[in-house]
């Protein structure tokens, strides 16, 4: 690396500048995305060069959106959103290309508009970029959000790492700020460009061609050069705004540079139009901040935007101006939350900023001095997750909260349009990002039902726009007794992004969510998963497509061989049947028919419960109960005898779990009290058995009491059984079964527990009052109160303590106190 820096190849940079910047028809302007100083110099170059055509590095399938970006009513930040569905590979891709007011690309577009010259994006269309990258490279790198901008080529190069180490910079961003932003705007444009080309040249020289090829970089440079050549051929003066890394590559393909660069054969993949999407959306500064996990270019968008604004106004020291402003704003925010930062702290912090700038050889204090000064001067104590609040507030101030505005005539994806229309229709507040609450009575008011459907659909689309705080949740089987729904909703730009993401499914919220639901049905689901979709369809009000959903569920039920999956399906369909009228679903007969099919199939599969795992035994008991409840409901016209016969076979199976056996016996008792004898015999079988069988009595009773607790109430036989069990068990074994026994008695109501206590007392010839505890008696309470007062008086007399006393009263009937 040292060799490279000292070698005579530095002359190459001068040559590069000459070719890129003095050609009569071409200016190749290298930039860093969102850089204010690049915008500053670019403006000057455009005004001096007066191009006929401005070409900007960006996917060319967004050219039609440029007029909306530069419209008078539009204000950045905004972003171009690209999507591509690779149907052959079954993958979807998307990326964002943000623009801030200080972005050189945006400046180029505005200047192009003022000049009245052609302004276009010149890079490969997004789908072609994706198809030309290797997995894990460039836009195919796994990350939370994908950005079009390719600053990583510069920032990640070996040269930059070396340069940062040698100059003591903590990151490329700090390096960039010191050597380009802070002093760069005062330099002549020629000097600035030469410095930048040096940086880009060195970054490129230390990057392997292989990496550039895998990255798709070489193909893109070929394509962009072709675009430029075409304009130059028409005798146009062309100004091309490019990421500086590409300078040599593009010049080579234009025939203006001697160094040989690999040429990659390329042919368009002719992606169908419906598989690609490109939309413009308003954006926010904090979303554009690279530190939020999004590698867009420079960090701290609000900081650099404000620097650019004052720079353009002609301030002598624009960075320090904004540093001071942000220190004050940060101080205010911290005081609001904590109150621990004073004006003097701000003064000290400002002095720290200036001192650090001088020490670091910077023209003026910048973003990194600002952060350092807040850390040093605002945080009083050890830096940890509690004390770092001032840094968090500063970060918010430096990132910014500004939201862009798009002209009203900008094309909006139909899905977003529908969303906005519906919000207006339902009078939902979406002008700010504040959370709002809405209480709905969907089962008594039609309008509320429609709003509920809307919220459910928005949820299903994964927009995170709305969230049910309280209310019936069919799919989860919770709060089904509630008739009101409390919703919380909140608008954020991410809602629009997600809607755009889902716009491939349809043009309206209803269509997109329904389509998504039906798509989900195509996946290989178990019938229990598919039946959840029935509930979702109900919650979203898809009365018309319910038929399709139920047909798909039926198909899966026919193929299903798992008892537990069928049980899950049955449970969901029972919910659906019970609540269909609330949600105005008319397929009641189909649901009833399905319930019957599932029931009969489950009866056939009852034998499989012999081998069910311990962890699923409780769920199996629930399934049996549901089957029984369905039988009792005459609406379904189910043949109870089938279940009875099935359970009779089940209970005699040798290796059935005692919990399930107990529950099955309880249900049989529900069919006929003649099973009583068998149940008692089975109970004694556990209690009087040898070895581990005694401990199995507890789950047996638990299962039995779950489904037939009235057996205990009718006679004392089970209590006698339990008594013997408790006598027989060792202390260790008792402790082992205690949790199960507690659960067994949890099914009884307090009154029933009292009755059981009475029976137990009678068994041992005792009074039930001996067993019952009613808490403290009135007499005991009165004694305690009296003592408390006496002690307080004594302490007051001795002037001990601070107890506030009420006047003591003599308690009647207390002797000797």
């Amino acid at each position: 690396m040292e060799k490279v820096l000292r070698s005579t190849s530095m002359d190459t940079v001068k040559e590069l500048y000459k070719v890129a910047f003095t050609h009569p028809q071409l200016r190749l302007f290298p930039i860093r995305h969102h850089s204010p100083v690049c915008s500053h110099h670019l403006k000057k170059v455009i005004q001096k060069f007066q191009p006929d055509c401005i070409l900007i590095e960006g996917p060319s399938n967004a050219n039609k959106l440029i007029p909306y970006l530069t419209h008078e009513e539009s204000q950045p930040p905004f972003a171009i959103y690209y999507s591509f569905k690779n149907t052959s590979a079954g993958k979807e891709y998307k990326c964002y290309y943000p623009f801030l007011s200080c972005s050189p690309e945006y400046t180029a577009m505005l200047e192009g508009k003022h000049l009245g010259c052609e302004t276009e994006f010149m890079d490969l269309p997004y789908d072609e970029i994706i198809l030309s990258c290797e997995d894990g490279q460039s836009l195919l790198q796994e990350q939370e959000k994908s950005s079009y901008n390719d600053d990583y080529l510069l920032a990640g190069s070996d040269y930059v790492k070396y340069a940062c180490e040698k100059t003591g910079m903590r990151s490329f961003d700090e390096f960039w700020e010191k050597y380009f932003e802070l002093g760069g705007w005062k330099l002549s444009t020629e000097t600035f460009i030469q410095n930048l080309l040096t940086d880009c040249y060195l970054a490129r020289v230390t990057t392997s061609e292989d990496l550039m090829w895998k990255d798709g970089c070489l193909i893109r440079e070929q394509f962009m050069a072709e675009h430029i050549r075409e304009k130059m051929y028409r005798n146009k003066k062309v100004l091309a705004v490019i990421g500086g890394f590409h300078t040599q590559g593009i010049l080579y393909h234009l025939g203006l540079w001697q160094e040989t660069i690999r040429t990659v054969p390329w042919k368009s993949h002719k992606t169908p139009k419906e598989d690609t999407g490109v939309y413009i959306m308003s954006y926010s500064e904090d979303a554009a901040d690279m530190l939020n996990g999004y590698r867009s270019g420079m960090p701290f968008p609000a900081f650099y935007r404000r620097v650019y604004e004052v720079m353009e106004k002609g301030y002598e020291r624009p960075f320090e101006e904004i540093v001071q402003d942000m220190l004050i704003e940060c101080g205010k925010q911290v005081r609001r939350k904590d109150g621990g930062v004073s004006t003097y702290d701000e003064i000290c912090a400002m002095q720290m900023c200036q001192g650090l700038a001088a020490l670091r050889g910077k023209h003026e204090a910048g973003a990194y001095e600002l952060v350092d000064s807040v850390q040093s001067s605002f945080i009083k104590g050890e830096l940890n997750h509690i004390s770092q609040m001032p840094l968090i507030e500063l970060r918010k101030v430096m990132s910014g909260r500004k939201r862009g505005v798009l002209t009203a005539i900008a094309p909006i994806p139909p899905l977003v349009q529908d969303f906005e229309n519906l919000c207006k229709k339902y009078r939902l507040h979406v002008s700010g990002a504040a959370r709002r609450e809405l209480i709905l009575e969907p089962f008594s008011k039609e309008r509320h039902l429609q709003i509920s459907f809307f919220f459910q659909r928005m949820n299903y689309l994964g927009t995170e726009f709305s969230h049910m705080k309280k209310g019936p949740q069919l799919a989860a089987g919770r709060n089904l007794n509630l008739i009101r729904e409390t919703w919380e909703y909140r608008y954020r730009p991410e809602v629009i992004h997600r809607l755009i993401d889902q716009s491939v499914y349809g043009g309206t919220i209803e269509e997109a969510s329904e389509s998504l639901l039906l798509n989900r049905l195509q996946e290989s689901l178990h019938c229990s998963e598919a039946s959840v979709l029935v509930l979702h369809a109900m919650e979203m009000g898809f009365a018309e497509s319910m038929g399709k959903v139920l047909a798909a569920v039926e198909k899966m039920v026919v193929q299903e061989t798992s008892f537990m999956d069928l049980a899950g399906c049955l449970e969901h369909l029972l919910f659906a049947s019970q609540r269909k009228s609330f949600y105005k679903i008319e397929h009641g007969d189909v649901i009833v028919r399905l319930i019957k099919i599932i029931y009969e199939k489950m009866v056939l599969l009852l034998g499989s419960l012999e081998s069910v795992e311990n962890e699923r035994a409780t769920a199996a008991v629930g399934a049996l109960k549901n089957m029984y409840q369905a039988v009792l409901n005459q609406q379904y016209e189910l043949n109870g005898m089938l279940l009875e016969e099935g359970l009779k076979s089940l209970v005699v199976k040798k290796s059935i779990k005692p919990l399930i056996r107990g529950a099955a016996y309880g249900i049989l008792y529900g069919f006929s009290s003649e099973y009583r004898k068998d149940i008692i015999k089975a109970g004694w079988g556990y209690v009087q058995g040898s070895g581990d069988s005694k401990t199995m009595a507890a789950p047996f009773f638990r299962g039995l009491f779950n489904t037939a607790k009235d057996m205990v109430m009718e006679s004392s036989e089970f209590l006698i059984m339990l008594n013997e069990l408790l006598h027989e068990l060792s202390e260790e074994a008792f402790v082992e079964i205690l949790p199960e026994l507690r659960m067994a008695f949890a099914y009884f109501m307090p009154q029933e527990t009292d009755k059981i206590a009475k029976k137990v007392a009678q068994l041992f010839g005792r009074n039930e009052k001996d067993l019952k505890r009613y808490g403290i008696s009135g007499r005991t309470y009165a004694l305690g109160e009296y003592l408390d007062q006496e002690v307080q008086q004594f302490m007051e007399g001795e002037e001990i303590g601070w107890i506030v006393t009420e006047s003591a009263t003599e308690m009647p009937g207390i002797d000797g106190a």
Partner: protein
Amino acid sequence: METTRIKPPMEELYQEELAALAANDTGRKPQNWKLSAKAVRTFILGSHIPLKYNGKEIHIAKKFYGNDALVERCIITLAGNRGLMLVGEPGTAKTMLSELLSAAICGNSTNTVQGTAGTTEDAIKYSWNYALLLAKGPSREALVPSPLYVGMEQGILTRLEEITRCPAEIQDSLISILSDKVMSVPELGNQGLLFAKPGFNVIGTANTRDKGVNEMSSALKRRFNFETILPVADVALEKKIIMNEVRKLSLLDHVDMEMDEDVADLLAITYHELREGVSAEGHRIDKPSCVMSTAEAVSVYYQTMMNGYYYGDRSMDVDCLVQNLLGAVAKENRDDLQKVKGYFQTVVKDRSNKEGGLWKKYYEARRWIQ
């Protein structure tokens, strides 16, 4: 040559470097500073470019690793109105940094108040030579100045080590001194006001494991800028620190023995993993409750080195290394030995199987863990 002191002060240890920096210093100096802020920075963070002094090339070595920006902030703080408070876990080089700053800025790193639970206001401000006091009455001659008094009088830095160990009311006596930069000596009547000279400032240190800075009053906290020194996060850097510090110690003690880089690497990895609670391979490790600082690692290495030099064959004995490691770990809580045992039984064993060599010997030395 016999060394006359166990630990010479920084200004003596780096006398030549400081002189070279002073001779070549063209930067602006805050009032009464021996060096400019840039030169102080160079002294502590080092430079690739040697300085010419007295016909020689003097290389300024890097002395503090891990956070250059922190050092810069410390320098700027000391040039301003506020004191500097260095906080962190024990063994993170707070004292070393405060000594380096003092040596570079005022040429005196020994003007120190050592904070303890028994520190009184006399130790912070001044006391009296009672014989002289009785003989001649209150006078400057009879006054025994504290380091803080000396710092104010001479316009140099005063170091307050472990300031948070002092009782709160003693700490609070610093408040008016730090804000008004004046100390009142009522016994001296009209002459009883000592105004601090330019160049005076205070560097405090506090370790977060003991009392930390929680008991410091808000009024006193506001008189300081705080800098938290975190343990070294990079294993390679930790190894470098171990090597550098041990080299320095061995030079002072004339322990003429080559350093074993592999052992330094092994020790750095051990300390790093036990401190972080996770191995390089992702094994979760029970963290010992004791301090696993780089300073401790230096100490363990150096002890092992001395053992090899005086009792061995001038090589690093892994058994001895493990024994010294256990000695360092066990000083607070014997349960920590079990955690080290667990570390050996999982991570070290795994590495011994994969890499063999030194790791294998290291694993075999686990027999010393009782």
